[in-house]
């Protein structure tokens, strides 16, 4: 092992072999550590990329909605111009407008009420289930049901038009309406006779009484003009077909 010795002894050879193995292991380990760091960075980059993609898609969605709106305006123009051509098409168009109102496919306005519902502002107390002081899907459903029974002709929750396919469903801390999630407060607009609508909600033992028991924040205002937007969801039907004659 002395520096003067030129010819390696057996011991030196053994040590050299061990060192060779050590060197191999060392560089392999260094490579492996580098790889793992790269992997971590890749994962981070992927998450950022996905977040960007989501934002991009959201923007695209907004643009596409705008496009739909514009195309529908065009259709309406064509229908109007067609209606001016003949009596038959005019009648058809009137029919179409009625159906559209019923289906919630047009923006509508009229007298009605605006109801604002919010979770209880009372601080949480021990031994009391905090859930009972929050708004649930069932509360909203009951309000909607009451409004319909009182003759509401158009209803929207947070500007989501309530149509025949609308779901009002608990989705964790939010409520899903037309497949869009909302958290409190909920602003429900309804068009109809304001007096009747208001009274139907406020009758003794009615839904508002029940909500106030749990100190849910309720505000009802009558309005001479309520604007309710159209249903913006898709109109694609995968299963339902119009029944053909004689089948």
């Amino acid at each position, binding site marked *: *092992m002395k*520096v003067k010795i030129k010819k*390696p002894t*057996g*011991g*030196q*050879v*053994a*040590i*050299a*072999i*061990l*060192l*060779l*193995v*050590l*060197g*191999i*292991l*060392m*560089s*392999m*380990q260094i*490579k*492996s*550590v580098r*790889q*793992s760091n790269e992997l971590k960075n890749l994962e981070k980059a992927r998450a950022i990329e996905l977040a960007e993609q989501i934002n991009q898609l959201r923007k695209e969605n907004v643009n596409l909605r705008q496009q739909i709106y514009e195309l529908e305006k065009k259709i309406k123009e064509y229908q109007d111009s067609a209606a001016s051509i003949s009596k038959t098409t005019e009648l058809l168009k009137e029919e179409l407008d009625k159906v559209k109102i019923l289906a919630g496919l047009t923006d509508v306005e009229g007298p009605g009420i605006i109801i604002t519902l919010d979770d209880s502002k009372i601080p949480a107390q021990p031994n009391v289930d905090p859930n009972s002081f929050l708004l649930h899907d069932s509360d909203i459903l009951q309000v909607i049901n009451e409004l319909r029974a009182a003759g509401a002709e158009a209803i929207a929750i947070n500007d989501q038009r309530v149509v025949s396919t609308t779901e009002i469903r608990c989705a964790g801390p939010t409520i899903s309406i037309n497949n869009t999630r909302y958290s409190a407060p909920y602003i429900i607009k309804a068009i109809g006779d304001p007096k009747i609508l208001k009274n139907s909600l406020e009758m003794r033992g009615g839904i508002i009484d029940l909500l106030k028991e749990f100190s849910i924040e309720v505000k009802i205002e009558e309005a001479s003009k309520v604007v309710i937007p159209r249903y913006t969801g898709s109109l694609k039907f995968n299963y339902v077909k119009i029944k053909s004659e004689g089948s």
Partner: protein
Amino acid sequence: MIVLVVALLVGILIGLFIPISIPQDYSSYVAVGLLAALDSIFGALKSNLKGDFKIDIFISGFVGNTLIAMLLAYMGDMLGIPLYQAAVVAFGVRIFQNFGEMRRSILIKNKSFSKEEKNQ
């Protein structure tokens, strides 16, 4: 001595160019094992300088320490105790100690030191 340095460099180069790396799961154990091996080498260099180097002690220490260190790290993972830290501390301290002794013996050989400086 030159043979040893060459062997180490050749090993490093081989490791760099073969397309294999340590699997992620074993990476931490290998790291501890490498530390143990490094400690053995420093020990060998020191005893070589002092002139009481024995090949069998070196090889048994090199292989044994490496294996035990890896086993410790593995056991620690199993038991939920970071046992590998014991190996890191023990071998780390030893490496510095050996290096210090080597430094002293080399410097004392080359120059005549006063006793005061020797004890620093």
